[in-house]
């Protein structure tokens, strides 16, 4: 039995998939703490879809996929800004139009060149088959992002909570917001390899949302979210060995299960606690 459970660790590609997933899951979870508090969730989704054509082209032209992703992400951001300035459309409509367009172009490029690019690995991720160069790219992106976040999370928290106060203590909210979006784009690119474009959004929302139900302090929120991200991602990669299923799908399913558990059982903000509080209120009321 134990031999069976340890079996995945005997394969180098499995070990690599597990630690790369854990690293990416951790950084994405860190970012999720900020993203879910600002109502910017859709932006993360848009970003993940918008980088698809860049990645497809990068594989086609044999350049580092991160460069292609970055380029098309920037292009999408510019397109969104342009459409928003030039029309009266609401932000969600603008985002919806731009990201579906980019995603469609990406799929088109992939479908025209089925031999050089694998559509499935972009849309659904392919961490088990990740190449050595891609591992290096992902690891560098994730590690640098993690370092920056560890150093600057308090400043980012203040900007997200109270921009005026950030200014009053001499911070630049604009610069810090740009920093955040650069990190988000970078981590989206990294997560593309593990869970694919469609499920990236879960990685940058769910762990933070789960942790939010479990605590009232930002520092603790980050610790819990990162722990959830690391554990679910590693577990997803590990379990995919046995279930022979998509790693991305498993990671997100694990994250969702934990979210549901927190939703029901969280000591203070869960449904059971709420029901208990309501009952206590009813009892103490005359």
């Amino acid at each position, binding site marked *: 039995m134990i031999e069976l459970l340890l079996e995945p660790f005997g394969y180098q590609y499995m070990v690599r998939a597990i630690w790369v997933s854990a690293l990416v899951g951790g950084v994405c979870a860190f970012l999720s703490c900020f993203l879910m508090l600002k109502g910017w969730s859709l932006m993360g989704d848009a970003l993940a879809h918008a980088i698809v054509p860049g990645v497809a082209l990068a594989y086609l032209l044999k350049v580092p996929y991160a460069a292609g992703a970055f380029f098309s992400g920037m292009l999408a951001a510019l397109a969104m800004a342009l459409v928003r300035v030039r029309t009266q459309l609401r932000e969600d409509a603008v985002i919806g139009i731009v990201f579906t367009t980019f995603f469609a172009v990406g799929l088109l490029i992939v479908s025209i060149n089925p031999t050089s690019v694998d559509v499935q690995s972009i849309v659904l991720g392919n961490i088990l088959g990740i190449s050595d160069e891609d591992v290096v790219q992902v690891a560098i992106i994730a590690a640098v992002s993690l370092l920056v976040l560890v*150093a600057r999370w308090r*400043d980012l928290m*203040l900007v997200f*909570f*109270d921009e005026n*106060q950030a200014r*009053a203590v*001499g911070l630049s909210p604009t610069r810090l917001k740009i920093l955040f979006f650069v990190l988000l784009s970078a981590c989206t690119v990294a997560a593309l390899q593990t869970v694919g474009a469609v499920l990236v959004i879960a990685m940058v929302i769910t762990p933070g949302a789960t942790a939010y139900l479990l605590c009232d302090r930002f520092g603790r929120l980050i610790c819990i979210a990162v722990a959830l991200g690391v554990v679910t991602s590693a577990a997803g990669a590990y379990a995919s060995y046995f279930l022979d299923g998509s790693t991305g799908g498993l990671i997100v399913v694990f994250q969702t299960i934990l979210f549901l558990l927190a939703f029901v059982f969280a000591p203070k903000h869960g449904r059971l606690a709420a029901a208990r509080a309501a009952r206590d209120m009813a009892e103490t009321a005359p």
Partner: protein
Amino acid sequence: MNAAAAGAQEGVASIAVDGVTVRYASGVTAVTDASFRLGAGTICALVGINGSGKSTLFKTLMGFLKPARGSVSIAGLPVGQALKRGLVAYVPQAEEVDWTFPVLVEDVVMMGRYGHMGFLRIARQADREAVEQALARVNMLEFRTRQIGELSGGQRKRVFLARALAQGGQVILLDEPFTGVDVKTEDAIVGLMRELREEGRLMLVSTHNLGSIPDFCDQVVIINKTVLAAGPTATTFTHDNLQRAFGGALRHFRLGGADLHDDEDDRRVTVITDDERPLVLYGKRDSERVAGGKTTGEASDTAKDRAP
């Protein structure tokens, strides 16, 4: 009374707004040619209707907006430098704050200390002590580990006041500090502001609460797209000036003659209200005497407060 802010000493509380015009990117000019000066040890009310440029002025003082013309200096420094030194503290309106944000009371107060911390913003003993003192001063120590959304309206206000104290700002901007606050808390906040005035700080208070202004403000700046009047409350906070600032926007009641007196007394009562506590004027002419909304006894108290 107040040392003129002209030639203000660096680091000593003062605000000097000179011929400031602020234009938004949309081309709308919100404030034109506004000027006023305030010195240390002052509580100044900023009065005007909605859209008169109060928040524009606040944003300019906070460095959000750059004046298209004119200059602003705080504590003898350009706004940017004053902010860098943590000289300007800001107490936001309740609506501006995300009360569901996962921060505790002490975390919020600690945010006032960022300017005193190093690159990684790790709190030192001095920061923790400053937070504790600030919380003690607003009587919120026992709530320090509450999430901010669990507090009452008055408690929420006090948390942000504590943050301004922990920051050690010499110039404190308060945006509508009395909305959604009970009378007890209002008194507590006013009491604290008086203490801070004694310490030589300068507070600029944006408020609709006209009636309480004579109670605790020694200076008033009345604006409507520009500064209509600025100066000591006693001479500036008059019916004529308010009439100019508010036009028809104020509710205005006047009682006189047979409605008020049985005798030949020609004094009359004027009640002016924006949307909160009414301002009550009593005298032969509307501008003769300004009294607080409560009793005339209080009015003489304010007169005493205003003395140098």
